[in-house]
């Protein structure tokens, strides 16, 4: 949490393309400013920082935050006479953000966490559209257990590093020991033009360590519009108006450390305040300088998001021409290849897949050759993808509308703050509407990413909005509730034939795996080969030429087909490693030998959505000799099972699971010749409740032991009151993992 929220002021400096030339004068001015800032911050009138309180004896915390204070100032630069280096240049916005923390370090882990800092003193905010400069000032004091306080001479202790054209400063905190209290702050000051955005503010009232006092103070001039949201039970600011604008104050005491790390959705479970500070008035975005809007109505956020979406869509109309033609060409090829047109009810889906093919699969002559694993992990820009796709649909007279979706791992639906809390999907307007998005490069048409399931999603229809249609208000239509998938729809179904090898040491497994719904995604990325899915997809779409034929058609000195052939061979050679990895992840042990593997169905289309593959391999370590008899660790045939750690069992918060899902195994175990089977009856068990189920049934058939095992997590959300039901299922599965059967010498 700390890394994500508190130290973002340091982290955002990671990439900045423009250099700032430092001169001796700049350094001197920086130092003067830094001294002034340190004096100001150390003299803050916040009692919690003034004295280290007596801390509870026997506290086992690694570290205790005695006080944390965030101070935000946003004003018009006319108020600022001089704030340091380069800031004399006339700019329009002054923004500063200071986070000060006083932390008692109780062990070496905490000492390690606080013993080094790195930051950039100067950071250019110049870009094509914006200009500005940011400086970062750090102050550090150490309070020893006897109460003596020493300030670290930060400027003298720094070492500087060149990273390309940027300079980064690193500080190792001197004389810091376990038992000390560190009191430090990080101040970022920015002066920039009015069009440059101010960082979104998030005050998270929780951490992995207890916080005795968390306070926030913001002074924001009336040139800005302030919108903020108190979520998950966070208290509200005390707001006071003055001549310049408004002052926001918040004080929270005694926040315990955050409880668990399993199945959490922090945005929906941890009290926090999120705040946007936006310069000026933009009525079309519902933004009015001087206004403070606490907890904007969901309808307002929705309307702003719709307008934003519509505005963005303007830039895609012209740019989508080539893509429209590409899709049309594929449609023509389909017709000539198949001797018929695409059936009317499949056109929208065809266009989706054709567009996905053009966007993610098709290669150009000048592309970097990328045919290995890394290609599968490309993260698409979903919004751009859908905007282009929307234009392609428009060009081909297919009616489609946008759906504004929210993630279960983002802010709650009644606790939205701004348009960016929404993500987009597309939905066709037909009897059987199809939902579309690009979650990954294998996302099927009509697949709703699991994080959006069960959420209410407003519809935005841009049919009357676009070039030559004027810029009318964007109507936000009804909300649809995105369907929740069931445990059966997100399933892993395994059929396994198991036997022992001749010397009774290895287990031979012939395995047929089917992954359905959201269970597919990870393994598709891991196991699919570009060459294979390209070919399958272009055939399905009716494209005449294979990838190599297409590359051969390029004129001139053309070595590309050969190069691709070589690259394909290399990628194919690596595929075995990924199958080995898959088996290791599944069974918690690497296969002794992977004898064969094949992909039966790639699961690239909603009409044939399952990902199906076969593996044949041996596993070592599952058979134990006991005299003349052999014990098979039957429970391990379903792979490693989740063990809820002791500290996670007493749960006090709801559980956000990724999605409802099931795991089903049909396992056929051959009884070795000359042996009889004992203990199969002990494998049978059943737990079934509203949160999940785990059942094992065994039967002897034709001299073979047949096991049917099914584990299901029935819901993606489990309220804390029902946690014990879920635990029951998890424990039953974990218990089964230890079960054994005996092959007794006849």
């Amino acid at each position, binding site marked *: 949490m700390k890394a994500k929220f508190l130290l973002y002021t340091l982290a955002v400096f990671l990439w900045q393309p423009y250099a700032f030339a430092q001169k001796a004068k700049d350094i001197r001015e920086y130092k003067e400013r830094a001294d002034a800032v340190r004096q100001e911050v150390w003299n803050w009138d916040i009692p919690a920082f003034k004295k280290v309180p007596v801390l509870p004896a026997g506290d086992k915390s690694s570290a205790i935050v005695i006080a944390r204070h965030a101070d935000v100032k946003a004003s018009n630069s006319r108020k600022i006479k001089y704030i340091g280096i380069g800031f004399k240049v006339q700019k329009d916005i002054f923004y500063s953000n200071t986070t000060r923390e006083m932390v008692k370090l109780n062990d070496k882990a*905490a000492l390690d966490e606080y*013993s080094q800092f790195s930051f950039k003193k100067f950071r250019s905010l110049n870009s094509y559209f914006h200009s500005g400069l940011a400086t970062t000032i750090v102050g550090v004091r150490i309070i020893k257990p006897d109460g003596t306080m020493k300030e670290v001479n930060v400027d003298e202790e720094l070492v500087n590093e060149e990273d390309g054209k940027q300079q980064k400063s690193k500080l*190792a905190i001197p004389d*810091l020991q376990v038992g000390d209290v560190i009191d430090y702050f990080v101040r970022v000051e920015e002066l920039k033009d009015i069009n440059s955005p101010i960082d979104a503010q998030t005050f998270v009232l929780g951490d992995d360590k207890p916080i005795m006092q968390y306070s926030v103070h913001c002074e924001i001039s009336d040139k800005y519009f302030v919108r903020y949201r108190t979520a998950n039970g966070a208290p509200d600011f005390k707001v006071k108006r003055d001549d310049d604008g408004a002052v926001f104050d918040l004080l929270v005491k005694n926040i315990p450390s955050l409880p668990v790390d399993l199945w959490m959705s922090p945005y929906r479970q941890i009290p926090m305040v999120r705040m946007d500070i936006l310069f000026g008035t933009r009525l079309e975005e519902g933004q009015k300088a001087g206004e403070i809007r606490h907890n904007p109505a969901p309808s307002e956020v929705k309307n702003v998001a719709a307008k934003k979406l519509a505005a963005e869509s303007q830039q895609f109309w012209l740019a989508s021409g080539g893509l429209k033609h590409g899709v049309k060409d594929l449609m023509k090829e389909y017709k000539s290849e198949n001797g018929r047109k695409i059936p009317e009810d499949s056109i929208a889906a065809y266009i989706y897949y054709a567009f996905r093919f053009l966007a993610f699969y098709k290669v150009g002559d000048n592309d*970097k050759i990328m045919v290995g694993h890394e290609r599968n992990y490309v993260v698409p820009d979903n919004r751009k993808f859908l905007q282009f796709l929307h234009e392609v649909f428009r060009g081909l007279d297919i009616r489609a509308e946008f759906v504004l979706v929210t993630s279960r791992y983002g802010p709650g639906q009644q606790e939205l703050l701004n348009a960016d809390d929404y993500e987009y999907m597309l939905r066709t307007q037909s009897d059987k509407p199809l939902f579309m998005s690009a979650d990954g490069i294998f996302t099927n048409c009509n697949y709703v990413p699991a994080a959006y399931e069960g959420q209410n999603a407003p519809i935005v229809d841009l049919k009357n909005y676009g070039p030559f249609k004027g810029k009318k208000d964007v109507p936000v239509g009804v909300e649809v509730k995105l369907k929740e998938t069931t445990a059966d729809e997100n399933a892993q179904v395994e059929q396994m034939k198991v036997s022992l090898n001749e010397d009774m040491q290895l287990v031979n497994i012939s395995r047929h795996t089917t992954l359905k719904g959201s269970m597919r995604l990870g393994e598709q990325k891991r196991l699919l080969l570009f060459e294979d899915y390209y070919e399958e997809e272009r055939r399905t779409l009716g494209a005449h030429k294979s990838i190599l034929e297409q590359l051969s058609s390029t004129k001139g000195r053309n070595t590309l087909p050969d190069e691709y052939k*070589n690259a394909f061979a290399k990628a194919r050679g690596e595929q075995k490693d990924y199958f080995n990895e898959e088996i290791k992840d599944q069974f918690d042990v690497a296969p002794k030998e992977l004898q064969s593997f094949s992909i039966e169905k790639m699961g690239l289309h909603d009409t044939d959505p399952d990902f199906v593959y076969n593996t044949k391999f041996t596993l070592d370590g599952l058979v134990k000799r006991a005299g003349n008899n052999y014990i098979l660790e039957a429970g391990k045939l379903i792979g490693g099972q989740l063990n809820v750690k002791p500290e996670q069992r007493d749960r006090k918060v709801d559980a956000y699971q990724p999605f409802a899902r099931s795991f089903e195994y049909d396992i056929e175990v051959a009884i070795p010749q000359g042996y009889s089977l004992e203990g199969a009856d002990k494998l049978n068990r059943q737990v079934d409740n509203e949160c999940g189920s785990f059942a094992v049934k065994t039967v002897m058939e034709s001299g073979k032991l047949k096991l049917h095992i099914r584990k299901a997590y029935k819901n993606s959300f489990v309220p804390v009151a029902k946690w014990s039901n879920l635990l029951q299922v998890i424990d039953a599965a974990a218990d089964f993992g230890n079960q054994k059967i005996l092959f007794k010498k006849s």
Partner: protein
Amino acid sequence: MTRNPRYLYLLIALLYTAHMSYAFSEEDKNVTITNQKERYAFEAGDKENPVIIRQYSTTTWRCSQFRTAISFVEFYDSRSKIDEVRAFVDGKRAKAIKPVFRDYTVDDIFYSDAKMCIMEVPLERNNTESSVELEKTILDPRYFSAIYFSNSYATALKVIEVAIPRWMKAEIREMNFDHFQIKKEVAYDARRDEDVYRYTAVQLPARVNEKNAPGPSYVYPHLLVLSKYADLKTGRVNYFNQTADLYAWYHSLVKEIGDDEAVVKSKALDITKGISSDTGKINAVYHWVQDNIRYIAFEDGIAGFKPEKAQHVLQHKYGDCKGMANLTRRLLQSLGFDARLCWIGTDHIAYDYSIPSLAVDNHMICALNYKGKRYFLDATETYIGLDQYAQRIQGRQVMIEDGDTYILDQVPKRTWQQNTTLEKRILHIDGGALAGKVQQQWDGESKEFLLSQVHGIKKENLENALMKYLTEDNSKYQINHLKTSDIQNWDQQMDIQYELLHKEAVTGFGDDLYAELDFRKELSGYTIDTAKRVQDMLFPFKQHVVCETSLDIPEGYKVGDLPGDLKIERGGYSFNISYKLAGGKIIYHKELIIKNNWLPRTGFCEWNADIKALDKIYLQQITFSKK
């Protein structure tokens, strides 16, 4: 001086993880270096840098399968500079490709003055070539110590030329030339009055990146360049003519440190307050530096060789190995002990001080002469006791300061017995469980490993983490009444005792019971992939694992079958396992010893067969039949 990362051996975790894979990606066959020429020429410089070395090199890459790009990286620092770097693509000068200069950053080093010149050069089509020309100047012959032949790509032809004018006295030593095709020619260039040493190597395999492998100076062919002295027009400039010169240079830096004896003495008295015995004082000082000075690696020009002032390290509470060694020395000296600074090359380096070169060492420790015995104190090893030594310095030659001269000695070697882990269990069968009392002990580097893990964990999670470690995350291995020795005291063995209930460790089928006594199965599955592993294997340290378990034969049962015994004795390791019946109990004894941490490649097949035999025993169960 390049300092080694402090924790070389976190990889020991491997030993407790079954079925580790040594799969490394196959060497890149797409790109090869067809031709690499490097010329190093000694030249007279200026007053500040009397002798410099000009480096000219050209490297040509070729791709034979598909178009790609290579990253050209050249290191430099405050003692060297890149004068020019030019890229050529498919034979044409590519002016648009500009180098990027940046600091070299790596996790283990807080600050380094090493910088990188990086260029991304495309190979435009298969069967095309791209090349980079480099001009670089090394400003001081002291830092020009080694030239390696191998690259990260297979190299078809490599030519290294070293031009040494007759006024320059330098020696070239050829290292690891066996098994490589390297031809040497020496010519005299009369015009320049210089000897030109020309080495031509063909078919050099690519360097491989494998974990737990010997340092490059043991493996790859290279030249050590020993710059001894230069007879310039302005007179003789001495470099490292002999080891004494190396020491003299180090010593000159040490003399300039400027320690404040009063400050150090006051701290030493404070640390040893109330302690009367000498050994108590020595232990207290060593322990204090280990516990209170954070190790932070600095590599910064001359400061890479000169220790930080003791009072600064005291004030900062952090330092690198030099700063920590110097502080340890000064604290002990201020109490009247004979403590000295030592230079040492860890086992990552193949050389000793018979070679007068900066390439010989990479670490600094403190020596203590006390009552006729010499102890070596390395406070960067945070949790090791006095007179215990980490594998990386054991048996290594040390150069110990002795005024204007020096002493060469060796850090004592330790056997596996230094690092014993002992587990004693007295168990009985309780339903389907094994129950009883367990005692576990760790010493030496095993203890250091455990304590560094424990102290790296947040205090509130400490017990959970320790439990997780002891139970190997198995919820059926339940621990109660856990008692640990003082984890702040690493001068003694780490001792943990608890009551165990290992559920479902006993299975009943019909009238028979089946039990498994070995819970930890160290080294199980630790075979080495001989098809992939190229280099010898280095265990992080020597191991000694002893497990003694007694199990009461349950009432009404007799022992049906006992697993077989195992006795494997090899030069580098031994595995001994036995099951015995005695006084109504089964006594299980296991002793695994890694006597030599270096397992040569030639021993891999035997090792794999031995691990297989060990696994076979691990997979056997005890059978009890009803009487």
